[in-house]
Structures are given as C-alpha cells and as structure tokens.
C-alpha cells in the first residue's frame, strides 16, 4: 500500500465525521469520538505496512503526479506519523471525557451538539501533521503547516461561550498569522536565492558555495516563524495565555502534536544547511534560542499557581531542550542524528505530558478547578492517583529510571559531544529549577492538608482510566528499557 493513502484516508474520514455531526443525535456523539479513535488505530496499524517510493518506484501514483518531489516516506517520516497518530488518539480519549465541559460552553443546552465537530477537527489536524512529516518541499511543508494551524485556530476558540477560550483564540490567531507571514516571507527569499522549493535543491545550493545573504535572511525568517510554532523564547508569549484559555484536550494537542510538527518543520528547514559553510553560525543561533527558552520556561514556571499554566511553561522549557538537541547536530557531531534524538525526546515528552494532561483534565472535570491547590491532600483522597502523579511529575522533572530522564540524558550527552559546554551548564541549572516547580505539585499532593476530606473517586470512563494507567506504566517501563522507542526511530 503506498504511504500517501494514510493521509488521504485520514482527511477523508475527518470530513465524514464532520458530516456525522449533522446526523447523529446529541447524546450519541460519543460514538463519533469512539469511531474516530478506532479509525486512527487502523491508520496507525497501516503505517507499519505502508511503503514509500523507494520500495515501490513503479507504482502509478508516484510517477503520474510527480509525488516523489513532494512526499517522502523514510523511517523518520514513519516515526513522526506514528507520534502524530498516538497523540491524536490520546487527545480524542481526553476529549470524550471532557465533552461535558465542551458542550457547556458551546450551545444553549447541554446536549453535546457540536462535540463531533471537535473530534473531526482533531482527525483533520492529524492528517496535517502526517503530511508535514513527509514534506520534501517548502510548499508542501507550508500547506500542511497551514492546515494544521487553521484547524488549531478553531480548536483553541472552540468553547465559544467561554471568554478565556475566545481570548486565547484571538491571541493565537493574531500571532499565528504573524508567524505565517514570517514563514512565507522566508520561503520567498529562499526561493529567490536558490530558484527551488525542494529541500534537495536547497541542500545543494547551500553546500556547494557559501550561502548568499538573501538565503541566510530567508532561513533566519523561517527560524523566527517556527520559533513561534514550537514556543521558543522570545517568541513564546502566546503560549501561557493560549494554553490556559484553550479547552484542555486542545492544549494537550497543541503541546504535544503541534510542537512535534513544529520541530519536524524546523529540522526539515535546517537540515539543508547542516553541511554548509555557515552551519556553525546557524546552529549557534538555535543554541542561543535554546538557552533563552530554557531560562524563560523553567524560571517562568516557578511562580505559577495554575496547573495548566505551569504545564504551559513546562512545554516552553521542553522546547528549550528540544532546540538544544537540534542545535547539537551541527556537523553530524553526535552519535544519534537529530531526528532520532528529537524523536526520542518527543516520544518521551508525549508519554509524560499526555499523562499530565489526563490528570489535569480529571481534576478539572471532578473538582472544577485547574489550580494546584485543587490537588491538596490528594494522597489521602486517592492514593493510587497520587502515586501516578508522583511518577508523572518525577518523569517531567527528569528523575532517573523514568523515560523523561533518558530523553534529557540523551540531549545532555549530544550537547556535550558537540562541545556546547555553556549550553549544557545552563540546561543543567534550569533542569534543577525544574525540580522545584514539578515537586511543587507533589508537595500539594502529599504535604498539604486536603480542603475536602471525602475520597476522590475517579468517575471517568474506563478507557480514560486505562489510558492514564498505561501511560504511567509506560513512563517506568521505557525508563528502564528505552530500546523499543529507539527501534521505532531507526
């Protein structure tokens, strides 16, 4: 089966779900979400048997539409498709659990009308992420990134009767449009300098002779634009507000799926310059961005009292680590390539961040609050959930024997190999600050007296509880045995 079927099927199904919104009665909308999960699982399975143009060059579609110029399907593309699908499935599980709050702020009545639309948008965004992982060309990259971003404008502002959600939507729209402007402008300069949009051609142009000033200007603009998408400081100002205002499943998707796509795009844009005479300077720019992002993210998180806002800053901080991983790859200095390194980090980040958002959503649905003090005394109200939160926060902080530690460990290692001593020192200091704010949550869970003495029963669906349990176990298992994730990336 040719690989491009994956996206075509996904986007078609997304449109079908949108139609289902019109015909499925309100109380049955959960089935639409479950159908979406089932379908994405099928696509996930198909990813493993799909073949790219290198395996089957004679296939009609590849030659007929000149798709090979636009679309690649190598191990990295496959891995990022799996990542996109996995995060979308988890977000759908979150969204089904969150539907009561979604419908409270969308319609006049709590009839769950409109929730199927939400599920379908998630599926469409997934297709965009999958396309992006296969982009071989700036135009392809741009179109899929725009599909993703425009879908997210709706997903962020989805709770139209909630002022926070609308405010977040407007902020995201304005800054998203601004960054798109930067991106297109950068692409235009690149095209002008190289007469091509294809990454292969740009690679040749960048490495045969010293890149011209217009070319460097182009890539600088694209770095700024993608810095917005991944939440790199100083282009991070939208993140805390948008994350806090958006519905929690959207925030989770933004924080995992959208960030992963941003990094796919960033690596694709930077890769042609890895062998150019200016590589050192260009990648140093990323290293500087990484350091600023680490400082802003980690120190900004310290005073936060809102769990969701804390996760927003944590997402900025993690973007800093990821940028460091991309920057460490100059001159092929590391033993793991940067798509592998970033891929591993993103996989670990997906597991623990998704788990954290599951907890956040659970707390929001059951206590109505997203503040850290809603977790006060949880260890007495629900000890097993308290243990799960402990594992998740330990992993986010980077405590050994969790998957979060291994991700950070690889980044430190790669940065050391690349000789970026100053960046490593900054990263180590900020990681220590990370301990403080992640453990603040643990302090609330274990040390503070509960506001409400009654036991907190998890009223969520068994699918939700099972996913949270699996994610927590996965943190520990992959912390001891990371090989399965590594096998996927190779």
């Amino acid at each position, binding site marked *: 089966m040719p690989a491009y079927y994956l996206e075509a099927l996904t986007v078609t199904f997304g449109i079908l779900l949108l139609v289902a919104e019109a015909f499925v009665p309100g109380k049955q909308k959960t089935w639409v979400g479950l159908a979406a999960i089932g379908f994405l699982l099928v696509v996930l399975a198909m990813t493993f048997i799909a073949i790219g143009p290198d395996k089957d060059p004679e296939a009609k579609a590849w030659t007929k539409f000149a798709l090979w110029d636009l679309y690649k399907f190598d191990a990295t593309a496959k891995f990022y498709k799996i990542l996109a699908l996995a995060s979308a499935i988890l977000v759908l599980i979150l969204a089904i659990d969150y539907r009561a709050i979604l419908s409270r702020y969308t319609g006049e009545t709590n009839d769950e009308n409109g929730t199927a639309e939400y599920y379908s948008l998630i599926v469409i965004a997934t297709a965009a992420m999958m396309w992006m992982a296969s982009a071989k060309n700036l135009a392809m990259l741009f179109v899929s990134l725009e599909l993703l971003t425009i879908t997210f404008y709706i997903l962020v502002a989805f709770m139209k009767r909630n002022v926070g959600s609308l405010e977040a939507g407007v902020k995201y729209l304005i800054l998203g449009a601004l960054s798109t402007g930067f991106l297109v402008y950068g692409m235009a300069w690149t095209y002008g300098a190289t007469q091509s949009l294809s990454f292969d051609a740009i690679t040749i142009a960048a490495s045969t002779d010293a890149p011209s000033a217009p070319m460097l200007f182009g890539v600088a603009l694209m770095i700024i634009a993608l810095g917005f998408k991944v939440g790199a400081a100083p282009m991070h100002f939208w993140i805390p507000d948008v994350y806090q205002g958006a519905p929690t499943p959207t925030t989770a998707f933004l924080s995992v799926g959208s960030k992963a796509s941003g990094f796919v795009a960033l690596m694709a844009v930077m890769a042609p310059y890895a062998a150019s005479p200016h590589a050192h300077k260009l990648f140093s720019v990323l290293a500087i961005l990484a350091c600023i992002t680490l400082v802003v993210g980690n120190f900004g998180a310290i005073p936060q009292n809102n769990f969701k806002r804390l996760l927003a800053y944590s997402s900025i901080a993690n973007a800093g680590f990821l940028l460091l991983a991309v920057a460490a790859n100059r001159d092929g200095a590391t*033993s*793991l390539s940067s798509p592998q390194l970033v891929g591993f980090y993103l996989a670990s980040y997906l597991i623990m961040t998704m788990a954290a958002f599951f907890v956040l959503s659970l707390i929001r649905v059951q206590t109505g609050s997203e503040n850290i003090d809603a977790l006060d005394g949880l*260890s007495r109200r629900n*000890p*097993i959930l308290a*243990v799960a939160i*402990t594992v998740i926060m*330990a992993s986010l902080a980077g*405590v*050994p*024997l969790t998957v979060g*530690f291994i991700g950070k*460990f690889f980044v*430190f*290692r790669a940065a*050391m*190999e690349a000789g970026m001593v100053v960046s*490593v020192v900054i990263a*180590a200091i900020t*990681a*220590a600050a990370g*301990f*403080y704010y992640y*453990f603040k949550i643990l*302090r609330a869970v*274990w*040390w503070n007296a509960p506001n409400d003495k009654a036991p907190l029963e998890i009223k969520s669906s068994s699918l939700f509880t099972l996913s949270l349990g699996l994610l927590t176990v996965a943190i520990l298992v992959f912390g*001891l*045995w*990371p*090989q399965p994730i*590594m096998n996927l990336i190779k």
Partner: protein
Amino acid sequence: MSSFLFLIPFVAAFAIIFGSPARLTARAAAVATFLLGLYAAATWSNSGMWSFTFSALTIPSIDMAFGFINGTSAVMVALAVTVLLAAVFSGQSPEGREKLYYASSLFIGAGAIGAFVSTDLFFFYAFHELALIPTFLMIGLLGRGNRKETAWKITIYLGVGSLVLLAGLVWLAREAGTYNILAMLEAKKAGTLAIEAGTQKSIAALLIVGFGILVSLFPFHSWAAPAYASAPAPTAMLHAGVLKKFGLYGLLQLAVPLLPEGMNAWLTPLLVLLLGNILWVGLVTISQKRLDSMLGHSSVMHMGYIFLALAAVVASNAAGKTNEFGIPAATVLMFAHGISIAMLFGLADRIEQRTKSLDFSDLGGLAKPAPLLAFLFGMAGMASLGLPGLANFSGEVMVFLAGFEGREASAPLGPVQIATILSLWGVVISAVYVLRGFRKTFQGPTVSATASVADLTLVEKIPAVLLAAALLIVGIYPRILLQLLS
C-alpha cells in the same frame, strides 16, 4: 540473579501501595532480602552466579547489568540488607500512614541495594536517585520539628549534588567510551584506558564535589544533621547508615582506580576538607544540646575517617605503591559506621517515643528504669568512638595504618601522615561527645520525663540486638569482611 535482591523490596513496596498489608509485607520482604543478601555477599566470588545483564539500549550501549564489582560491593550489600531489616522493625508508623511509611523504607532499601549491585554507570546513578525521593517524602511528611523546611533543604542540596555528579559520570563514561564499570576497570588494568591528566583533574573535581555533597563532606555538610534530626527513625537509619555510603562507594570504585592522577591533584584540598569533617564538625558535635542533632553531627564527622582512607590510597597509588590497608579500612569502616549509626538512630527514636523529647535538659537517669536500652545505646556509642572489640575499632585502626603505609622511617611526614596525626584527635573528640551524651541521657538522677519509662519491648529488641550482633561479630572477627575483599 542478584537482581532479585533489589527486586524483593521493590516489588513489596508496590504491593503495599496496591493494598497488601503494610507492616507484614515489609517485614517479610526485609527478612527475605536479608537472607538472600547475606548469601549473595558470602558467595559473591563464585562469579557468574550473581551477575545478570539485560540490554536496555544498544546505541548508546546501556545495559542493566547487575553483579558485584568486587568485595566492597558484597560488603555494602551485606550492610544494606542488615540495616534494611533493622529499619523495618524500628520506629512506629503514625496512625493511617502505614503504606507510605513502610513502602518508603522498602524503596530506599531497594534503591541502595540496586546501586551497590549495578555494574553499569547509568543504573548505578539511577538507583541512588530512586532512593532519594522516598527520603524526601518521609522527611517532609512524617518528620519531626521543622520538617517541611528541612525536606526542601535536602531536596535542593542533594538535587544539586546529584546533577554535579551526573555531569562527572557522563564525562567519565564519555572518556572511557563505555558505561560498563567492569569494562572500565578492566581497561584501566590493561592500560588501554588513558585519560589525560587535565581531563582527569576536571572529572575528579566534579566527582569529589558531587559525591562529596551526598556524603556530607565539609563544607557541604550542613544538610545532614537537621535532616537526620527530623527524619523518621527508619529513614534516618537507612540514609545515614546505607544510602550516604553511596558517595564513598562511588569514589572508591570509580574515582580512585580510574582517575589516579586527577584525584592526586586534589589530594591536599581533600585532606583539608576531611580534617574539617573530623575536627571542625567534631567540635560542633560536642556543643550540641539535643541527642538527635548530636548523632547527626557525629555521623558527618565520621565520614572524615573514610575519606582519609581514600586519600591514603590515592597518595600510595600516586607514589606507585599499593596500599594494603586503604581499601579494607574504608570498606570495614563504612560497614561499621553504617551499623552503629543506624543502631544509635533507632534507639534514639525509642528514647524519644518514651520521653517525648531529645533535649539533653529533659533527659537524665534513663539507665535506671531502662537498663537494656542504656546498655545497647552505650554499646553502639562505644562502637562509634572506636572501642576495641567492636566493629569500628578494626576499621579505624586500619585507617591510621593506611595513613602510614609504605612510609620510610627516615622520610619527612607527607600531607597524608600529617592529616592522620591530626585526625587522631578526632578519637578524643568523639570520646568526649559520646560520653557526654551518654551521661546526660542515661546517668545522674532521673527527671520527671524519665522516671517511669519502660525498657525495650521484645519487638524493639529485635533490630537493636541484630545490629549489636553485627558490631560484635565484625569487631571480634573482622576477617569475616576482610576475606570478602581479598
């Protein structure tokens, strides 16, 4: 196979979280670990039987490799399982917190054992970190006095120490090209591991500071006494007795053999710092007004002697000689100190439970109503000041012998010899504070709080007698440990 050792407390801790009866599970697991641990330690030289490797990651190669690096690992495992057994029988869980109380003790024990049986740098480090988290939780949740502030203090202190250490270990692994400790040591022996002197010096500095913070090397020691004073009894016993030895163990197994030149470059500063432990902290110990903080400070002070043994080995290696006494001295003293300090913390907790205070001004005359408690406490105290016949004596004598090992009679005194002579004063200092503490607590007329206290009950005798037996056996027959090292 030795992976079973840490798996027992690990699995038992999870069983407790998920509803298994806490006290019973913890005690059964500790007994099983104790028996298997002693067996593993006694038969460790039967190589292969206790080693186990599981590939966690191929590129970069990280294995979950378990086994004993050498006899020192076996002795440390024996220490860990003994103190773990004593710890789960000590202290008293607050009502309703049994799960946390017993599961944490088991996690600390599992982490410590895991670190001592890891032969891969990555897991060696990771297990120690695993043991720190329940330590913080226990102090913060179930501790005494100013527990929250103390818990934050040690979280930050030990967190920073661990990060410095991680930097040093990763650098070391990068220079060695492997994470496998056994492979590193073999390469060093075969002469294929050559790290240039400047790099050695930097790595050694990171390791000394990183491990040093964890071991409370002067001047990084200020976390230790308040932490032990507010920790619940099993946590204080396990941390002061076992987990803290991780730092010394790491220096002994990694820094001393792999970075001889780097360690030698820092020899004089290290000697000054360890004298800070012995003399400065020793004098501070004398002036303590509470029994628990006296014990906490004394545990910091005794670390100095073990550092002295390490320094003697470093100096001998640099001179191209082998120091016969150095490593046995450090190992025996780590064992002896671990047992005696665990016993002291365990008994101090029993005193507090009876008198509701550990302030010397509220204590006195306890020996009359509780003679057995007084005898056992006195025995542990005498052991820690180095009374012949108890375990610490053989360790301390060997430390002083190690200091003068290989010195020609006509040669002038070297820095190690000067430090050894100065540190002999530490014996006097510890005699002063141990005897003073004993007198203030157990002798003289009884006061209102101590007039009618009960002696140790049967369950309370178990851990104390177990540890006392270990002190006596090793004291009278130190060969039982030394033969493991040869």
